[in-house]
């Protein structure tokens, strides 16, 4: 069984080997000269950079992104559920409905909490 994984191992060896060879070749062939401040500076289409490269974002963006992902995952979770729903209900009864409803109910409470705490209030 383990022999089946030989291509994977080969792939790993080639990937690591290629990266190593490329980096070493860069040092050997690239004739890296002496560094100076002009060479190390940020090149932005010939313009002089004006401020720090990483401006600070408002935390609201992260909050909204996080909430979006939470409810996005909920939908992702519902697709396979909806696909097997009919077959499952014919076999084992309505437990599939109640388990999904309790899951959605918990998320609903989370949603109410987020609204009451002002997580979706952009002006705050």
């Amino acid at each position, binding site marked *: *069984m*383990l022999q089946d994984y030989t291509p994977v191992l080969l792939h790993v060896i080639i990937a690591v080997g290629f990266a190593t060879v490329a980096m070493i070749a860069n040092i050997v062939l690239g004739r890296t000269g002496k560094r100076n401040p002009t060479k190390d500076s940020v090149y932005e289409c010939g313009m002089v950079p004006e401020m720090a490269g990483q401006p600070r974002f408002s935390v609201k963006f992260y909050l909204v992104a996080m909430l979006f992902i939470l409810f996005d995952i909920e939908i992702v979770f519902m697709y396979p559920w909806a696909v097997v729903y009919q077959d499952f209900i014919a076999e084992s009864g309505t*437990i599939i409905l109640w388990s999904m409803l309790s899951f959605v109910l*918990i998320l609903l*409470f989370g949603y*109410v*909490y987020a609204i*009451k*705490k002002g997580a979706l209030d952009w002006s705050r």
Partner: protein
Amino acid sequence: MIDPVFLEVSVVVLGIFLLMAEAFGLAKEKSTLAWWAIGGLAAVFIGTFFIGPNSNSFEVSGFYVVDGLSLFFKRFVLISTILVLVMSVDYLPIVQRLVPAERPGAGSGEFFILPVFTCAGLMWMVSATDFIMIFCALELVTISFYIQVAYLRRSMSSLEAGTKYLILGALSTGFLVYGITWFFGATGQTNLVAIREVLPLIPVANHPAILFGLALVLVALGFKIAAVPFQFWVPDVYQGAPTPVTAYLAVASKAAGFLVLIRVLEPFFTVPSFQNKLFLALVLLALLTLVFGNLAAIPQTNFKRLLGYSSIAHAGYLLMGLAAIGDAFAGGAVVFYLSGYLLMTFLAFLILVPVTKASGGDDIAHFNGLARRSPGLALAMLIAAASLAGVPFTVGFFGKFFIFEAAMNQGLYLLVLAGIVTVASGFYYYFKVIRAMYWQPAPEDAGPVAITKTSSVAIFILAMLILILGVYPQLLIGMLP
């Protein structure tokens, strides 16, 4: 009679109720939330004594098991959570100072609500018999811990601890999932009972795949229980996290991790070819953890950091018990040790909170002259330190004694020797606190340490239990599953 499934469900419902109460501002004082949580968890704790047979289809599908062991640990987790909440009420002023808030007190209610969700996760974790269930419960626990560790947003060390815990925790989760896929690939099962049945039938050619999976899972759970060499996060996270959260991490998270470890490793101890390799790995882990945890604790000057290293050291003794699992009483010894560990660790942290509030820090130097300032607290701390070190007539002594006995019966003489030597070094670093309390002068302006009624009651009960069980351990042994 209560269906056991309802235990966790009612804890989750309690958590949601508290969350809504916080969102709609039902509780005037934030500490009211904590009292509601304590009341609810106490009710669930009483409920654990009226468990009927599990009628739910969960058990049939093998996800969830309720046996003596899991029931014992459910109670263990509930008691830990209640103690954490008691401690949190005491800790509230520090939280409110270090959490930015628009209105006074805003943003500190969740400090009492998150432990309730962690509690539900831990309760599921100790009942889980399927890797999927173990993973989900573990995630509920870890994600709520991420928030709790980084709760003090104005404290740089708390944020640092949160980042460290998040990154290393996510890494260890990755190891766990990868390990599970290897198990699934080799056995076609995620269920531990099914894996146990399939395991002896696996052809020898597939054994390396299973051993690889086992190693990965061992890494992930080693992270949870703070075994060397997966302990790098422990000192920083323990020092930076809010003190009640540190206590929670040190006791409940570690205990649940050990129980999951026992459940996961159990099938592999039944097959001789795995048994030998697993045994070697456990002995090595135990040896490293014992030596590193105890030696690194010696130079510490911060009390929370010291307890962090001490928690690594205790994981070493527990792993020693796990390596001796072939002995009839080894499992009982591990559970006894964990119970004693709960008592003494919570006692130490319960005393640390008022001392931190009164002296402004959690270094050992802040304990200076405590014996003259508050003799009662100092005496309780003396009991806690003595028990952590393993002095006779405390529960810590019997915990170590039973583990060593089990290891001797299994012929692990090297481990026992390392254990005895490291206990000696333990005496040194635990007694630094005692020296500070009894032999160092108190600061000039220091009066008695203020302490709430509930905390002093909890401290009294824990100290008495340590002494009683140190003289009469049969009381606890009778309750062991």
